[in-house]
């Protein structure tokens, strides 16, 4: 290092590296692909390599060089298929998020109140599924949910049902798959906030006349809000674009936007339309993220 650089300058240099490295990462791996997809969404599909028209035609006159088209977005509005899969995706992701919250909150709360070293063990159990392939685990669910599967044969053995239930290829199976897969993403941020919660605050509320459920509503939930919001976003965002779970566990009526996107890209090879689908999805997701940001800033103002 240059000995003429004084320590203050060197510190500033390091600070710059530390701060801007993540930005460079985001620029390279998020913004650049986004710009490419964004660009393709304004092109026309072509039977060529790449399968879309260029946005700029250098050979044309100056006035007509720019060849962008809104046809793809227009088509999204026209064809009911896209609306239906967007809305269904939102609905499935929303319900799955609520289910994850209902399931994850008590689990996170119980873990946060468990004394060490049991607490670490329980946390380990939460992240243990990540150690095997996600795909493998979904296949395992398929095996369990089939008509000859574990669950059906168990239910028949204890005499609860006479004929096997159709569980696989239903919406219920999709919810089960999404909740099963994403509940750790709900539990971990919830645990992080609930663990920090000062138990004196619970006692103080009780001391002032709050019954246990009032303590929960007045103290626990408001203070766990950052964790609730973070957990919900961590579940909702990947769930809305989920492809594998509805494809493997769902039926024909569980077509989600991820599948539509896949079909446009790889079956119809209509890259511009697929890009438009992706861009719209992104804007649907930006909305809750912006709401979250606003919520986060509120307590400080």
């Amino acid at each position, binding site marked *: 290092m240059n000995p003429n650089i004084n320590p203050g300058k060197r510190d500033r240099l390091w600070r710059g590296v530390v701060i801007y490295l993540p930005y460079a990462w985001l620029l390279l791996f998020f913004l650049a692909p986004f710009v490419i997809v964004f660009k393709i969404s304004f092109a026309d599909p072509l039977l060529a390599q790449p399968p879309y028209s260029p946005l700029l035609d250098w050979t044309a006159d100056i006035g007509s060089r720019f060849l962008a088209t809104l046809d793809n977005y227009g088509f999204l509005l026209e064809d009911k298929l896209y609306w239906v899969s967007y809305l269904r995706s939102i609905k499935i992701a929303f319900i799955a998020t609520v289910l994850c919250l209902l399931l994850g909150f008590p689990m996170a709360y119980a873990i946060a109140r468990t004394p060490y070293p049991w607490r670490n063990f329980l946390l380990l159990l939460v992240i243990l599924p990540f150690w095997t392939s996600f795909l493998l685990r979904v296949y395992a669910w398929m095996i369990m949910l089939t008509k000859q599967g574990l669950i059906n044969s168990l239910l028949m053995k204890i005499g609860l049902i006479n004929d096997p239930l159709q569980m696989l290829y239903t919406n219920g199976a999709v919810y089960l798959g999404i909740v099963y897969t994403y509940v750790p993403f709900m539990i971990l941020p919830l645990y992080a906030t609930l663990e920090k919660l*000062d138990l*004196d*605050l619970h*006692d*103080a*509320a*009780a*001391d*002032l*006349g*709050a*019954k246990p459920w*009032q303590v929960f509503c*007045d*103290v626990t939930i*408001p*203070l766990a809000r950052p964790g609730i919001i973070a957990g919900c976003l961590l579940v909702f965002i990947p769930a809305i674009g989920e492809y594998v779970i509805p494809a493997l566990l769902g039926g024909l009526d569980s077509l989600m936007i991820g599948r539509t996107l896949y079909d446009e890209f790889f079956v119809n090879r209509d890259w511009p339309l697929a890009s438009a689908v992706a861009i719209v999805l992104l804007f649907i997701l930006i909305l809750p993220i912006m709401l979250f940001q606003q919520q986060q800033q509120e*307590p400080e103002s």
Partner: protein
Amino acid sequence: MTDSHKSTPDAPSDSPWEDSTQQPYIQIRNLSKRFDDFTAVDDISLDIYGGELFTILGGSGCGKSTLLRMLAGFETPSQGQILIDGIDITNLPAYDRPVNMMFQSYAVFPHMTVEKNVAYGLKKEKLPAAEIKERVTKILELVQLTPLAGRKPDQLSGGQQQRVALARALIKQPKVLLLDEPLAALDKKLREQTQFELINLQDQLGITFVVVTHDQEEAMTLASRIAVMDAGKFVQIGTPSEVYEFPRNHFVADFFGNINIFEGAVKASTEGLISVELKNTGTLIEARCDQALSTGTEVKIGVRPEKLLISREEPSGEGLTVTRGIVEDLAYYGNRSIYRVRSQSGRVIQVSTQNYQRSAHLLLEWDDEVFLSWDSSCSVVLTE
């Protein structure tokens, strides 16, 4: 400071515990709390009278916090009863007790403004909004927080947060206010101020205060009575001056400030006065003693540093115990000085004196030969 306590309707006399016609306000009967194989509170009985500022004092782990938490309703006693105003509250949940608590951590709700924190208890009572507003306004004035009503706790200093916690606990007009280490987190100046504010407030409101603390100075300055607690039991209960001047045993004597302890055996015992021969040296010390102690009983004699007189000339007088020594160490505090004197027998005795003479020079220097003396009434006889 306890003299400043005015009589309240609840406490017609200044020392109701001495008046057998008085009905205790809080009655704790044979209370125990066991956690697995650990007994935190061990068969305690205690009467606290209306309008008292009662302090429970002890080191960490002595069970004082568990006792307070049982009074508040956060812990269920393993055994025993708690009565307030004659009503058994042992099995009442915390939210139904006529008791409020100020937490050591203050436990101010971080997501609510000062005003909302203070109003919380009344909201749970479902009082009309107008009454809540009126009472909040009044109590915020009392603790001088009116200008900060709209602030969130993270915008307040520690002292301000404490006043929020106090206002929040007082607004429900509890019969008993529990305070857990109320001064521990404050700096020295603020402590003194808050201490007097608490005493004044208690005088004004006539609420019975039960304070838990590990700080003997805090206990002495606040309390009408102190219960000294050790290993889940009360060692001594009395007024601050009683526990300071007449400690029941070595533990209490040592807990409250400094004390010089001499070990010996009773040599002679006459009416109210015993003579103790010290181990090793054979020096005789006289002490007032109400107990009849037989000759040969092993006892400890305690003498507080400020009860000792230090002088260059040999003092004389009836009932004085005199010993000689050399100033080994001294510390000048301005208003007073502390000397560590090595006596002829080789042990170090601590003396504290008021610097009542004005002088730029030290009146006594290192290695000065001095006489130490004290009156036999100042010797504390400790049998346990």
